[in-house]
């Protein structure tokens, strides 16, 4: 099992010096074990970069993760991807066994839930855009609460007058809702196809959304879901 040629990733060089071997990456099966151990040990998703930093030099955690993911298909726990990070999570169909572990999910206000959805589907999105979509101003504390829960974070500033800050969802958000990336949001494609993720400027005047902020004309669609 320790034989690197066996797994075929020890490409080439049939003759090698001892020194070389010393610094060779471990065989893929071993790398898979390592990734497995690290993911199992952590409750938080582990980034690819973190894995690279912890595993011996020359390892390929991404490939090891793919092997591991396949290995756990259909099992009681699964290897899930969350953006750039990976984690092991129990299979959702077994949730009924876990009453003991269930954490009280924080009750979110309707405003917070809608704001969260808008950030997720429209990201990066400015506060003015959120208000425009909801038709009301975002109350104090809503954004605050979502940031505190680590579900949304600041994105890049919009390159429009006033350079307003934008909000995007976090890996924790993906983790919580079991999404591999924001692209996997349910119904995203349909919504986009229906033009409902557009930020159409109102014709002429601004009937809705108080404020009538200068950044209402911030229509940089190109940025949406770039990441």
């Amino acid at each position, binding site marked *: 099992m320790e034989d690197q040629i066996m797994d075929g990733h020890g490409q080439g060089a049939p003759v090698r010096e001892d020194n070389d071997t010393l610094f060779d990456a471990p065989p893929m099966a071993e790398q898979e074990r390592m990734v497995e151990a690290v993911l199992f040990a952590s409750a938080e998703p582990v980034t690819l970069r973190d894995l690279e930093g912890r595993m011996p030099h020359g390892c390929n955690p991404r490939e090891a993760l793919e092997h591991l993911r396949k290995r756990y298909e259909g099992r009681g726990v699964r290897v899930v991807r969350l953006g750039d990070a990976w984690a092991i999570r129990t299979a959702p169909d077994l949730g009924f066994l876990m009453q003991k572990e269930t954490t009280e*999910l924080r009750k979110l206000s309707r405003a917070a839930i809608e704001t*969260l959805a808008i950030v997720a589907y429209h990201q990066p999105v400015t506060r003015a855009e959120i208000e425009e979509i909801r038709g009301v101003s975002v109350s104090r504390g809503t954004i605050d609460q979502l940031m505190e829960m680590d579900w949304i974070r600041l994105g890049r500033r919009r390159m429009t007058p006033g350079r307003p800050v934008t909000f995007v969802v976090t890996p924790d958000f993906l983790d919580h809702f079991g999404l591999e990336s924001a692209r996997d949001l349910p119904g995203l494609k349909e919504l986009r196809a229906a033009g409902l993720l557009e930020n159409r400027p109102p014709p002429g005047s601004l009937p809705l959304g108080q404020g009538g902020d200068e950044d209402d004309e911030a229509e940089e669609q190109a940025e949406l879901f770039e990441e």
Partner: protein
Amino acid sequence: MAEQTLFSDQDTSVEERLAAEALIVDVDGFEGPLDLLLTLSRTQKVDLRRISVLELAKQYLAFVEKAKELRIELAADYLVMAAWLAFLKSRLLLPPDPEEEGPSGEELAAHLAFQLERLQAMRDAAARLMGRDRLGRDFFARGEEESVARIKTVTYTANLLDLMQAYARIRTKEDFRPFVMDRDSVFTMEEALDRMRHLLGFTGDWTDLISYLPDGWHSDPVKRRSATAATFAASLQLVKEGKAELRQSETFAPIQLRSLNEDS
């Protein structure tokens, strides 16, 4: 947008009116005019894409009328919306005036319909999102994180919120700081009095009050203001005690002080 429904003029049915009335009771439950419009639009029982905006405008205006009759206070934004919808209604009903500038009634109506549809879409999306399998409820993270206790490095951490709040706290300290804490740039009346009692003996003639400000309190406007106020208050105290007199030639002219000490 179907033209015929847009320009039809059928009366609002009894049922719809009853629904609207029921809403009035609950007006506080709405998150603004757009939310109310969305709820009203449901009485049309059609796909949001086929909604009659004209009909909706009428419903909304009827709602606002009813609220007035019942003396229910509507927030300003509801009234702004009402005014706008009244405008939209007239645009939709009147033949287009080629002279008139700005977007047509149909364009405005289409945009409103779009906003309603988009809001509804986001609500549906939010509901779907919250209905997903969720961490800590349907699927679970590792319960027992492993650690090798022997190697213990302390890592200090902070999140963005901490950072921003720390900064906000520093920058707004002045806004909230109790006055007495501002020792650095506060010159108290007691200090001024001490100083002036000491100096008064040396100045025989009328002297500008400003010249009594202590060294180093002239340039910084905050310090200067504080020192000036304290010195002025102190001089009033001295006058009250009969040790000095004050004069000012006209409003905003320099205030001058003279010792009333018999010795001078």
